C-alpha cells in the first residue's frame, strides 16, 4: 500500500495571514485591558480630586474674651458647669469686636454666619481642655461655615457677579481682612470620622454609616456563612443526585440572579410587616443582605469543595473515616481558602448594596451613631446616596470622600481574601 500524499508544505501567504491574525488578536486584548485601566484611573482621579478636600476643614482664629462672669458665675470651676455654659454670646461679641461698626440685624446675622452653626462648641471644647483659660482672652480656632469652607477650597469663585455668588462682597471683605491677619487656617477634619450625619456639611461625618455598615455586615456574616457553608457541604458531599437536588441547584443559581431590590421587598413584607422587626435597623438590613448573599456563598463553597481532588476523600474513607469525618478533617480544610474568598467577595458585594436597604427604611436621615443592632441606622452606600442628593455645595466633597472610605473598605476586604487564599492554600 503506497501513500502518494505530498509532504506538508506551508503556503507562505497562509502563514503570513496566520501570524497577522495572532498579532491582531494580541493588540485587541491589550487595547481592551488599556481601556479598562484608563476608565478605572479616570474614575479614581475624579473621586479623589473631588473628595480629598473633605479631609480638611477651614477654621477661623478668633480672640475670645472668656469672661468668668458669663461662663462660670458661681466660680465652681466644675467641669459640668463649664460644659453647660453658653459660649454663643462670647463668640458673637468676639466677632463684633473683630469688625467694629457693624449695625443692623441683617449685617450682624451675615457676620455671625461666617462661622459654623456649631462653632461655639469649639470654644467649649477648648475651655474644657484647659479650664485655666477662663478669665483670660484666648485665641481659639473655630469652625467656619460650609460656604466659607467651600470658598477657601476654591469651589466658590470670586470673579463672578455678586448676585451669583454665595459669599457676598461684604463677607468677602471680612474674610480678606481675616486672611491678611493669618486668621484663616486649615486643619485635618477629624469630625468627618467621629460624627454622625448632619444637615450642616461642616458637621456631617461618616462614623454613623460606618458603624451601621459594620453591624449590618456582622448580622449578614453570622447568618449566611454557617447556613451557606453547611448547605454547600450537604449538597456537594452527602445529597444524592436526583430531581429534587437538581431542582434545588437550579433554584440556588436563579436566586443568585434575582435583582437585589426584590430581596428588599421580601424583607419589607416578611421581616417588617409580618414579623414586626424594627424599621431602619441593621438587624433587618443584615437579614435582607444575608438572603441576597446566601446563593453567592453556596455557589462559591460548592465550587471550592468540588475542586478538592476525590483521591483525598478516598484516602480518608479507605482508612476508615466516616463521611462526616472525611469532610470535616480533610475536605473542608482544603476547601476553606476558596470558601473564605467567596464569602469575603459576597460580603464586599453586600457592603456596597443600596437598593434592598432603601426598601426597609435604612434611607432615613439619622444623626445618631447607632448603639445596637436594633437602633435606626444607615450604611455607607446609602449615606453616599443621601449626600449626593443634598443641595449644599459642601456635600459634594463629602460624597466623594464617603466613596473613598467605601472603596477603602472594599480594597481591604479583597486584600484579606487574597491573603487568606495565599496563606492557607495547600498544594497536593
Amino acid at each position, binding site marked *: 500500500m503506497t501513500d502518494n500524499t505530498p509532504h506538508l508544505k506551508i503556503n507562505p501567504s497562509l502563514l503570513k495571514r496566520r501570524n497577522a491574525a495572532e498579532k491582531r488578536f494580541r493588540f485587541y486584548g491589550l487595547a481592551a485591558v488599556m481601556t479598562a485601566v484608563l476608565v478605572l484611573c479616570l474614575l479614581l482621579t475624579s473621586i479623589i480630586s473631588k473628595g480629598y478636600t473633605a479631609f480638611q476643614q477651614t477654621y477661623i482664629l478668633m480672640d475670645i474674651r472668656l469672661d468668668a462672669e458669663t461662663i462660670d458665675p458661681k466660680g465652681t470651676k466644675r467641669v459640668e458647669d463649664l460644659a453647660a455654659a453658653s459660649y454663643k454670646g462670647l463668640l458673637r461679641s468676639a466677632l463684633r469686636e473683630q469688625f467694629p461698626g457693624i449695625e443692623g440685624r441683617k449685617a450682624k446675622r451675615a457676620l455671625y454666619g461666617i462661622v459654623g452653626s456649631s462653632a461655639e462648641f469649639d470654644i467649649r471644647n477648648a475651655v474644657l481642655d484647659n479650664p485655666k483659660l477662663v478669665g483670660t482672652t484666648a485665641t481659639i480656632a473655630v469652625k467656619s461655615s460650609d460656604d466659607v469652607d467651600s470658598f477657601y477650597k476654591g469651589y466658590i469663585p470670586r470673579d463672578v457677579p455678586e448676585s451669583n455668588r454665595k459669599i457676598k462682597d461684604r463677607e468677602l471683605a471680612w474674610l480678606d481682612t481675616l486672611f491678611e491677619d493669618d486668621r484663616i487656617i486649615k486643619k485635618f477634619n477629624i469630625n468627618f470620622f467621629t460624627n454622625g450625619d448632619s444637615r450642616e456639611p461642616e458637621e456631617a461625618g461618616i462614623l454613623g454609616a460606618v458603624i451601621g455598615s459594620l453591624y449590618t455586615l456582622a448580622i449578614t456574616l453570622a447568618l449566611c456563612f454557617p447556613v451557606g457553608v453547611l448547605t454547600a457541604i450537604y449538597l456537594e458531599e452527602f445529597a444524592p443526585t436526583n430531581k429534587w437536588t437538581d431542582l434545588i441547584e437550579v433554584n440556588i443559581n436563579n436566586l443568585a440572579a434575582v435583582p437585589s431590590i426584590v430581596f428588599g421587598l421580601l424583607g419589607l413584607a416578611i421581616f417588617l410587616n409580618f414579623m414586626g422587626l424594627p424599621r431602619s435597623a441593621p438587624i433587618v438590613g443584615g437579614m435582607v443582605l444575608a438572603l441576597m448573599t446566601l446563593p453567592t456563598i453556596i455557589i462559591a463553597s460548592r465550587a471550592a469543595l468540588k475542586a478538592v481532588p476525590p*483521591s*483525598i476523600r478516598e*484516602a480518608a*474513607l479507605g*482508612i476508615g473515616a466516616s463521611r462526616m469525618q472525611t469532610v470535616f478533617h480533610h475536605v473542608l480544610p482544603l476547601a476553606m481558602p476558596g470558601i473564605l474568598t467567596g464569602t469575603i467577595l459576597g460580603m464586599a458585594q453586600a457592603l456596597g448594596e443600596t437598593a434592598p436597604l432603601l426598601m426597609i427604611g435604612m434611607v432615613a436621615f439619622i444623626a445618631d451613631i447607632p448603639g445596637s443592632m436594633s437602633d435606626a441606622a444607615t450604611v455607607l452606600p446609602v449615606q453616599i446616596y443621601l449626600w449626593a442628593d443634598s443641595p449644599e455645595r459642601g456635600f459634594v466633597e463629602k460624597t466623594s470622600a464617603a466613596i473613598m472610605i467605601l472603596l477603602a473598605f472594599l480594597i481591604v476586604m479583597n486584600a484579606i481574601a487574597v491573603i487568606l487564599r495565599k496563606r492557607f492554600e495547600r498544594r497536593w
Partner: protein
Amino acid sequence: MSYAMDMQNYTTQSETATSEPKIMARDVNVFYGPSQALKSIQLDIGANEVTSLIGPSGCGKSTFLRCLNRMNDVIENCTVEGRISLDGVDLYNSGLDPVLLRARVGMVFQKPNPFPKSIFDNIAYGPRLHGTVSTKDELDERVEKSLRRAGLWDEVKDRLDKPGTGLSGGQQQRLCIARAIAINPEVILMDEPCSALDPIATAKIEELIDELRERFTIVIVTHSMQQAARVSQRTAFFHLGELVEVGETDRLFTSPQDDRTQGYITGRFG
C-alpha cells in the same frame, strides 16, 4: 436467554476456592446503573498470601477490589448483589458498619494520595481516628513502626514534620502503604499501586509487598503480568466482567486452561 444458560457461559476455570479463605465471594454481580460490571464472580482470597487480579482495562478487576471494602458504596447507582464474606461474616447483609470494615480492610490507591499534612500526621491520622493509641509515646512508636515496615523510616525520620506531598512519587506511595498498615488491618487492597511509579520505586514496593504478606492478606490489581508473576501466589484473570480463570500464579502463567487467558498473557490482546 435464561439465567441457567448465562451461568454456563460464566463458568470459571479451575481453583476458585482455597484451603484457608480470608474472603469469600459468591455470585457477585455489580451494576453501574443499567450496565453490568461484574458477572457472577466466585473467588476466594487466601489468608496471608498475595492474590493478584489481572485483565485488560475495564474488565472489572478494580470494581471487584472495591467491593471488598465497600468503597463502591460512595459511587452513586452502584449496586452489589451476591455474597462477600470476611472471616465468614457477610459484608453487605449483616449490618456490618462499612466504616469499621474499611479499618479492617485497608486500601492503597493507584495514584499516591497522601493527605496535604505532615508525614507524621499522615500516619497518625488512622490510629488517632480509631483511638488505638492512648499516649503520645505510643503514637510516636506506632508511626515509627509503620514507617519502618513500609521501608520509609530511614528516608524520612529527620523530616516527619514536613508535608507528605513533598516526597517523591515512590516515597509517597510507601507513605500511603505505611498509613494503611498503621491501623493494623487484616487485609490490604492495592489498586495498581505501581502504575504511576518508575521501575526502581516499583521494585521497592514489590519487595515491600512480599514482606507484608507475612502479616497481612493482600489483594493487588495490576496491569503488569510480570508484576503479578513476581509478587503473587495466586492470580485471577478477569475479562469483560467475568472471572475467566484463577489459580496458582506459576500454573496460570505456564499452562493457562482458557484460550482467553492464553491470549492475554502471551500479549495477543489487552
